[in-house]
């Protein structure tokens, strides 16, 4: 087996890990702040990708503006849904939030399948990022390097914003104790809407990044959320940094599995989840409540 193949698959793993990281980070923010298991997280990823495809094909707007506009659009839609529908189930058991977002996912996915069918649509790699670097032991396409770089920057940027800035402190306060935070004059409902927007924007951003790599299709986010669930279970809900590290590691392991045992590569994340549950049920970075 050549090192080309191994490193090639590792890069693919790293790319997947990048998407897992962005999505599970958004997922973790939403579940931490709103207590909502957002099953539609993969749908917003799809919306991000489809948004950039629409911008290009209907309006002629290219990759770079789409990188901002498409996640923004996803965030706006997400905030609208949060304001009008999701906020109505906060007082109920968490199960209802999960089921509500499941219904929304089915609705949005169904609408896109109805209008665009399930066939994949290509999205060109932006001109500036075509070509690649010859590293000697392997060939690294520029765009892939860019995706990993951006994912790392965004993940750690978000982590920094939440852990070290004033808005992050407010968000954490609202997570810990919404009543008390409200008593300090902070508009918690608006903060929740904002948090939901940030969470789905990260998914939408991942979608735009994914558009040139995978073909754009209404089905693209459907199974992703299950992987995100596994990532969150493995990492534990305790720390944001933990879930980022877990996402990248699981992506890498999945890439490695594609070299060693291709038939099982789809399952490797779930097998790891099983082992973690049996050994450390609270997750690697979580703590038993």
């Amino acid at each position, binding site marked *: 087996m050549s090192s080309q193949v191994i490193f090639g698959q590792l890069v693919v793993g790293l790319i997947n890990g990048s998407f897992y990281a962005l999505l599970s980070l958004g997922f973790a923010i939403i579940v931490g702040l709103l207590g909502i298991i957002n099953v539609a997280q993969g749908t917003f990823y799809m919306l991000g990708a489809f948004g950039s495809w629409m911008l290009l094909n209907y309006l002629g707007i290219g990759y770079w503006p789409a990188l901002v506009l498409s996640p923004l659009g996803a965030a706006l839609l997400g905030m609208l849904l949060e304001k009008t*529908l999701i906020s109505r189930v906060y007082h109920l058991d968490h199960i209802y939030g*999960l089921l509500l977002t499941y219904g929304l996912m089915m609705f949005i996915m169904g609408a896109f399948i109805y209008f665009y069918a399930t066939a994949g649509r290509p999205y060109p790699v932006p001109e500036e990022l075509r070509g690649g670097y010859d590293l000697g032991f392997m060939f690294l396409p520029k765009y892939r390097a860019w995706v990993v770089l951006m994912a790392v920057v965004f993940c750690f940027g978000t982590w920094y914003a939440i852990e070290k800035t004033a808005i992050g402190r407010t968000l954490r306060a609202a997570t810990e104790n919404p009543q008390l935070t409200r008593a300090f004059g902070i508009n918690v409902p608006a903060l929740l809407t904002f948090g939901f927007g940030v969470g789905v924007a990260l998914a939408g951003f991942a979608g735009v990044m994914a558009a040139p790599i995978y073909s754009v299709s209404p089905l693209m986010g459907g199974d992703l959320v*299950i992987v995100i669930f596994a990532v969150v279970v493995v990492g534990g809900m305790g720390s944001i940094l933990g879930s980022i590290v877990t996402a990248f590691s699981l992506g890498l392991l999945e890439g490695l599995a594609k070299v060693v045992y291709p038939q099982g590569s789809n399952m490797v994340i*779930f*097998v790891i*989840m099983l082992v973690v*549950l049996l050994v450390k049920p609270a997750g690697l970075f979580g703590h038993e409540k």
Partner: protein
Amino acid sequence: MSAIDTKPTDTKPAAEAESFATSRKLDYAFYALALLVLIAAPFFVYPLFLAKVLCFCLFACAFNLLLGSVGLLSLGHAAFFGSAAYIAGHALKVWGLPFELAALLGTAAAAVLGVAFGYISIRRSGLYFAMITLALGQMIYFLAFQLPFTHAEDGLTAVPRGKLLGLFDLNNNLVLYYTAAVVFVAGYLLIHRITHSTFGQILNGIRENQPRMISLGYRVNDYKLAVFALSATLAGLAGATKTMVVQLASPVDVHWATSGDVILMALLGGVGTLFGPVVGAVLVEMLQFYLADSGLPIQMVIGAIFVLCILVFRQGIVGEINRILGR
């Protein structure tokens, strides 16, 4: 923390005995009527379709045994339904076993899988539990593509039905329908029995107040595992029967969307009720049947109904009727 909306139990003690007796009578009258409908139905509606609907009714009831009694939401029940469908299909088609044995094998496989998945997933509660069941279910979905006997995307097609007990030809639509009906009634009665037993009461107790049940000395996890396995087994029975009825076991049976469908059935009919999932299953199956021809997007409609159920009537249809009847 109560996982689901249950009906209020604030009836006055004096009137309770009497209202209980009337409620009992109403129940009997209702079930007698339901049985009549069940017997007469194939003479009015296409029996093959009805038989398939009955399989999903049993599936929905089996799923609801878990959610309704102990409040655990499983997002991976298609794994049990589908695994049994595959095993039974393989037994019918390749091994040439009769339906009774094939169904038994399929159900047994679902039971084993149920114990394994239950053991792993009840280690976490609430939302984690739901997420874990979904991830485990997805493993089975991938397996359905990898294993040699499942035939990837195609699944097991043209599964022969054979003869029931070596006597009755299941290719006769009426024999087929009444076989499915007997399986359904047996499953429903078992669920009814479980729900109304001491075991069922303990499960309700765990749903309403787990710490109290622990402090009363109940080994909560054993009870959860037991009901999880029972629910998986019955879902398996439904899946095995379905394979015989539609002569097909495909990856759709193990896909998460099937798990989603069964949640919708229970939710639409009423999670806090025993008969609700039956109503829900009939409605969802009818909807899918009619929408399939209309060209309307099924997924969108199902998604919309999901959202409506959650926001507007969480008690479900039967739950709402019960509320109006004051029960």
